[in-house]
């Protein structure tokens, strides 16, 4: 598989704090690549750097060999990178369908049409219905988004990324706050989307179990730096990951420094 997304020495500082510390990651096209790590590991910052919502202090991001580091956010979407947010980020007072329809319309050429009713652009309507069916929200298409239960809002968010049919989907904790029962369902959905469309999925997760089953490859971050990378089996066997992840690291280091 060719590398579709790549970071070189990506670094981001907030004042004295180094949130992302010279991270090099290569993500192969058509795979489901997860980035995991405990709270405060810098996953979301890294994610924001790659998707262009934050600008790095140093380092570059490449998409299909092209340097996209300085590209404005709205253009990365046009290149085919869609991203979701850890905190639900939707248009709360618009209907579910309108949320997705806006996402469909974004990549068309009709957004500056002023005089025809949006309802006459049936392509977007059809596409949004298709997407809503895919994520299982078709029956709630005319509900106001804010009135949906939390789990459905996460699905809507996923739908909004799917709508323009991007090549790379970047998902930041898509299951945050969802019930344990719903998690496998959503992960299956993500996996099926990835496999059916041959898409690349970059998944940031906090919960290791969620990603073990569906990932092709896993990157582990800890304290802003890259800790390990490999196939799920390698990762779960890696002792450093286990300790870092489970928070036992402090015991060893405390012992080292304590005497």
């Amino acid at each position, binding site marked *: 598989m060719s590398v579709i997304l790549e970071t070189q020495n990506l670094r981001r500082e*907030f004042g*004295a*704090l*180094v*949130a992302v510390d010279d991270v090099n990651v290569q993500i192969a096209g058509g795979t489901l690549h997860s980035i995991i790590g405990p*709270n*405060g*590991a*810098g*996953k*979301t*910052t890294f994610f*924001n750097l790659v998707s262009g919502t*934050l600008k790095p202090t140093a380092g570059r991001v490449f998409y299909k060999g092209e340097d996209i580091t300085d590209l404005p956010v709205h253009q990365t979407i046009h290149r085919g990178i869609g991203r979701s947010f*850890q*905190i639900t980020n939707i248009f709360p007072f618009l209907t579910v369908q309108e949320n997705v329809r806006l996402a469909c319309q974004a990549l068309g050429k009709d957004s500056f049409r002023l005089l025809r009713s949006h309802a006459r652009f049936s392509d977007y309507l059809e596409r949004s219905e298709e997407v809503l069916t895919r994520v299982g929200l078709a029956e709630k298409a005319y509900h106001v988004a804010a009135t949906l239960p939390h789990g459905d809002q996460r699905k809507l968010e996923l739908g909004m990324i799917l709508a323009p049919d991007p090549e790379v989907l970047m998902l930041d904790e898509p299951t945050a706050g969802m019930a344990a029962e719903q998690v496998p369902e959503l992960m299956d959905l993500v996996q099926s989307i990835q496999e059916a469309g041959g898409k690349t999925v970059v998944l940031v997760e906090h919960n290791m179990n969620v990603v073990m089953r569906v990932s092709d490859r896993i990157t582990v971050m800890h*304290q*802003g730096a890259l800790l390990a990378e490999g196939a799920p089996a390698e990762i779960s066997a890696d002792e450093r990951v286990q300790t870092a992840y489970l928070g036992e690291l402090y015991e060893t280091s405390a012992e080292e420094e304590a005497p």
Partner: protein
Amino acid sequence: MSTETSDLRSQTSEAGPSKNRQRAEWLRENRVRVTVLAVLVFVFVVALLGLEREDWFETIMQGLSVGALTFLVVSGLSLIFGLMDVFNLAHGEFFMLGAYLGWTAYTRADTLLDVAIPLLLLAAPFALMPLWQRLAVSITLTGRARKATAWGFVIVGALAAFFTITRFPLVIWDAENFALTPANMTVQIDLGTHAPLPADTFSGPVIVAVLGVLLGGALIAFGFGTLRKPGTETEALDRRNYVAFGGLLLAALLLHLVKEPVNEWIFGLSTTWRFFLSMGISVLLVAAFGALVEVILIRPLYDRPIYQLMITLGLGFILIELVREVWGRPEFTMARPAAFAGTGEGCPGQGLGGFFSGCSTVEVFGGRLRVYNEGFVILVGIVVLVAVTLLLRRSRLGMVIRAGVEHPEMVEALGINVRRVFTMVFALGSGLAALGGVLAAPSIGLSSGMGAVFLLGAIVALAVGGLTSFPGAAVGALVVGLLQQIIIRYGQVGIPIPFVEEPFKPSPTVVPAASIVLMVIILLVLPTGLLGRSEK
């Protein structure tokens, strides 16, 4: 819901970056800021050096004077915005209200005393609010009917109060002539357009008027008590309520008894002391009014900031109309207190010591300065700057304010009633604006448009200095004051332009425009102003 962007990894190394590196880093982060400040200082210095020496000295002092007045308005605006995120568009009108109240206290203290009596009586029943709330529980109506009944009580009470207040024994008021308010009449008598009235034009039993006003107040208070949602806990009715009620009644009675001697005493004072007295009265009254505004109008809208902006806009409009109703539309002036108005023998005074010569003007470095404008006003500005800075830096209230600017919720979580602090800050800001109003009145006169003019200057100063920064407010006010005076001065002497014979003379109308242009430029370069913190 944690966002990892805010995670701060601890550093086990304690030494931290060295002083030099810190300074270098600070410079790097603030290079735009430093450059802008440098350019600004450079432009000012060049502009001033282009003038003759006596001109530039005068210009600086006049700039400081205007800056001091602007600062008084802008300091309140800045405190309020910094702490509560409320942009008070009525702040200029508080300034105006301060000037009008100050004028009344200065030239017509008797009217103020007169009006205070019925107002105290009207306020007294509100001290018994818990009682009204308890009584209101017996009204079993709910929903809209309850609201309508409540407002009905308020309206009936207001009518009763209105008709009895106009029957009140006022020294200066022709009770037959409702078209003119007492204040308006005093203005006209003062201007000589209305004949002075004989004392006590009132006829009829005082007791009716007193009871009528009390009844009116009680009905209004009861109405508001009814507006409260049934079922919510009522405040406790304790001794304090009765003490407050009795105190207000007693105060009204006392005031009535001592009115004559107090009047005599006030009018016996020199105008200088009367001026200081009126400053105090005006500040207190407007501060109390500000607190009332915060509680009634601003507080219900904390979660709707745009509406807050709109309501202060509407409030400003109301205040202008109110002033026009109460004091009349024509502009009038306020006499300078005697200490700053001396002329004749030995005047103008010479040198810095001349400020104490009792002359209205002094000559310093060949420039002619007005003692009131370029001496007293600047002095008050500096005193307020120092006082507020001390309040912010040294007192517990200041500590809470500084903390509240940053994390109001955390302050609340420490058990501090942030809302009450908000009210106090709003009152403080209003009082400072009123102080500015009284100070400005002797030099710019009184008109219902004076607030809007100063608000524009204050907004510019605030935006230039940084919206939430108190030192920024001072710097911004200074910049605006100096810029305005420099341009006015150049409007007189003209700017020599190479190869053009006639020097360019900016017309006075462009003065405010220039400061606005400066504001736009600075905001475009530094969206947070000269000293503002970057957005949270």
